[in-house]
């Protein structure tokens, strides 16, 4: 796995972590990439011929964006929460999708523990929180041998 991004529900990047030291992107590049992903995800939901969200009375709760992009050599996998947050990771295409998915969900759990319970963190603002950093690193270390 190469990189983890977290977007807030408005599509701006609130957290980003590289797991490889040779990723060379400036802060602006990262923000641009994350926003582009948000935009693409919104467009994908609109052009999708299968519109699940209109059929049910509570269809607005269904998440509709991109969940996986497969490419030659890498893949981007996204987990979108019901509150609109997007956790997505860039990984090599040999990395098992199931493990990546559970990793993203676990990041969501530690996000609720270390970010949302931090009284100095403003919701929707970039995350600067050492405990969360450490928790994400631990999660990554527990799975990095697997892919």
């Amino acid at each position, binding site marked *: 796995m190469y990189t983890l991004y977290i977007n807030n529900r408005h599509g701006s990047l609130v957290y980003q972590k590289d797991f490889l030291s040779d990723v060379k992107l400036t802060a602006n590049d990262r923000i641009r990439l994350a926003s582009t992903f948000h935009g693409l995800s919104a467009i994908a939901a609109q052009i999708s011929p299968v519109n699940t969200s209109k059929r*049910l*009375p*509570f269809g*607005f*709760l*269904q*998440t509709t964006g991109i969940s996986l992009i497969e490419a030659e050599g890498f893949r981007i996998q996204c987990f979108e*929460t*019901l*509150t609109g*947050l997007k956790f997505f990771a860039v990984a090599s295409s040999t990395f098992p999708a199931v493990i990546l998915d559970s990793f993203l*969900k676990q990041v*969501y*759990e530690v*996000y*609720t*523990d270390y970010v*949302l*319970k931090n009284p100095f963190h403003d*919701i929707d603002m970039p995350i600067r929180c050492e405990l969360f950093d450490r928790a994400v690193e631990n999660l990554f270390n527990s799975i990095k041998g697997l892919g």
Partner: protein
Amino acid sequence: MSRQHYLKAGEVAFSKMDKVSAELLALTYGSLVTQLLKDKEEIESVNVQLEKMGYNIGIRLVDEFLAKSGIGPCQDFRDTAEVIAKVALKMFLNVTADVTGWNSDLTACTLVLHDNPLNEFVELPASMAGLKYGELICGVIRGGLEQVHMRVSCTFVKDVLKGDDTSEIALEFKEILKEEFVDEDE
């Protein structure tokens, strides 16, 4: 999904949570309410303040609920009410509630609380009859649902602290909040 299913999901979620002593919670909440009563002149503004504090808790807490309970999107508002009553209340307060009193449109109902850990050791003096002691919980529900695009109103209508037989929260669905993108060129 069935009621039994939610009861079970509530048990599982509760067993996963970190625990804190119920006495500690009851006493801390009690001192919080007393302090508010000292700071504010009117009891009504204490109710409002408690609800607001709950709301701010709710908008953050809902993510923890979604992350750890494993509950997916609800099918309709009845589903939502059951999830709150059987899973959410169980997970955070170790109580469950019964959902009753639906109106014909299925937009309003009553949550009957079997027990309220916040009420432990509490006796309301007659002069405080207007105080909604547990109003914070209502704020949490409102804040939490707002994050998943549902505007609701939520308040205590009956309270054992005031001599009622049960504690009841009235929950009413108001509207779906939509995020709309307006293109200015059109």
